[in-house]
């Protein structure tokens, strides 16, 4: 086990290194000088000199990369051109909004997507199966931004049930302040017993979460179904069937248990999709997280910010996949040998 963990960790470090080479490469192929991209069009002489020094532009390329690595390892991604703040600070301020959005959406997506996939695998060609397949085919054909806008039209425009944008009501934040412990508004307001703020946060969260869930539930259902079909075809299930064990027991005790393990893979996959999707969804809902931040940065040619967020999200994705792999390995003894 320890050897496996070490092996996986090493691999992750290797890939992270590759990711850094790519982002470093991108920062050096820019049209125009990297300094200009880092500082905007009209920097002063001192700023240029300082930046050249910080980026090590007077050194050779490998040395520049070392400096780049050193800065990245320290969490120094430079200063955002748009906000004037260190990119790391901006990211730290906004990460919790994205985490809240992604975690709640992931939970809902799994809560509804997994059973749907499993049932449709067990009862192949039933109406549940057809419905699930329809959802999984149609769901991946709808762009997330369009889902979000349709929901805005319905729940804000027509029904007037939910707010259009933002994370919490402005007045609520002022008149019913709560202590930020986790940065997740739902948790913080609940711990505080501040139900007015909780309600505001929940109603603001509803549409972005629904959008993310609808955009990813197809992936969950599709994969859950495929895995369950695989498991149902395994020898031991067929054997159990031959022994006359009731179908219900086979399906929901043996087979489901076996699927719970690869479900972890779905979690990892869906998580990645959600990180990518958060860019679009946060933009639609003016959600103050990393995705919205990166779009704002793109529009403003804020290169350091774009690269900082890219690195952070790629790292988060790698870590989740690592965690999934390790958990997988821990749960399924058969894999330990291979």
């Amino acid at each position, binding site marked *: 086990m320890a050897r496996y963990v070490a092996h996986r960790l090493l691999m992750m470090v290797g890939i992270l290194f590759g990711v850094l080479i790519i982002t470093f490469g991108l920062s050096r192929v820019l049209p125009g000088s990297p300094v200009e991209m880092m500082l905007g069009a009209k920097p002063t002489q001192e700023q240029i000199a300082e930046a050249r020094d910080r980026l090590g532009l007077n050194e050779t390329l490998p040395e520049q990369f070392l400096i780049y690595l050193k800065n990245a390892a320290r969490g120094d991604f430079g200063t955002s051109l748009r906000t004037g703040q260190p990119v790391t600070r901006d990211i730290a301020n906004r990460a919790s909004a994205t985490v809240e959005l992604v975690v709640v959406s992931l939970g809902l997506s799994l809560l509804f997507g997994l059973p749907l996939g499993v049932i449709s695998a067990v009862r192949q060609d039933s109406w549940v199966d057809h419905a699930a397949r329809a959802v999984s085919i*149609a769901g991946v054909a709808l762009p997330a931004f369009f889902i979000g806008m349709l929901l805005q039209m319905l729940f804000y425009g027509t029904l007037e049930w939910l707010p259009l944008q933002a994370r919490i009501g402005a007045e609520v934040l002022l008149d019913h302040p709560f202590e930020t412990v986790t940065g997740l508004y739902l948790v913080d307001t609940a711990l505080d017993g501040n139900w007015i703020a909780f309600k505001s946060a929940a109603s603001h969260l509803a549409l972005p979460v629904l959008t993310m869930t609808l955009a990813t539930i197809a992936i969950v259902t599709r994969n859950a179904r495929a895995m369950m079909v695989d498991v149902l075809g395994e020898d031991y299930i067929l054997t159990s069937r031959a022994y006359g064990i009731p179908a219900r027991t086979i399906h929901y005790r043996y087979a489901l248990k076996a699927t719970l393990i690869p479900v972890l893979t779905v979690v990892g996959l869906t998580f990645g999709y959600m990180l990518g999707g958060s860019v679009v969804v946060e933009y639609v809902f003016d959600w103050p997280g990393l995705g919205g931040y990166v779009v704002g940065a793109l529009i403003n040619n804020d290169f350091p910010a774009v690269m900082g967020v890219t690195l952070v999200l790629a790292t988060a994705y790698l870590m989740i996949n690592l965690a999934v792999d390790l958990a997988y390995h821990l749960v399924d003894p058969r894999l330990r040998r291979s």
Partner: protein
Amino acid sequence: MSSVAMVSEPGRWRTAWHLMSRNPLFVAGVVVFAVVIVCALFAPWLAPYEPNAINFADKLVPPGLAHPFGTDDLGRDILSRVIHGARTSLVIGITVLAIALVLGIPIGLLAGYYGGRLDSLLMRLTDVFLAFPPLLLPIAITAALGAGLFNAMLALAVSWFPWYARIVRGAVLRVRGERYIDAARAMGAKDMWIMTRHALPNSTTPVFVQASMDFGYTILAAASLSFIGIGARPPTIEWGLMVALSRTKFLDYWWIAAFPGAAIFFTVLAVNLIGDGLRDVLDPRYRGRS
């Protein structure tokens, strides 16, 4: 799988087509996609109006007889724009996949055929590209290269090629140990020749299936990039961009967002149905899995 190389390709395709034509979803996909292709090819003749012509007298007209899909805030006919938008979307799908294939196939061939160190090096390379959550690598690349449709397509291709490299590698690995490859080598055939004549054809089916699935995703991804402002630019007519430009008005005038959005949905849906149908028939491992 070795039998694959034995059965003649055309015969296999005919059987496949016969099987697929009995799948109603596949047929529906083909029909819708055919409509999209016709729109793309004959846009100037099919579109009732000049798609970029501004006519303030008729702005924000709801769908009706004169303008079946209504008009936007500059009085441009949305139906005509949606029809022209089909061109852009098809060009995007084809270009992105073409670049991805050009990058991915040689890498997969080399990795699979030579194996060893080169293989692990190339595969770690694809791992690195796959380490980015979807959309983020294209975003980072366009941030460096500058916004614009071509750069966006290039960026998408760069984040897509690893899948093809892996598929081709897998297919090559399956035939590498086969006797006829060894025989060819014994007869003094050049590596290059073996790869292109024996290894490559073996991977066409899985590559084709994957490409048919990815075609829709590339259209979606490009629309997303246009939506956040780093893809297509006016006067290019692109569905994602049309939805993006409608953002300030769609709550009051639903049709300016709804029709281009629906166009994306139906096109991608059709392509996915076709892809699913192809995969079920051509790639038996997936049969019965949705």
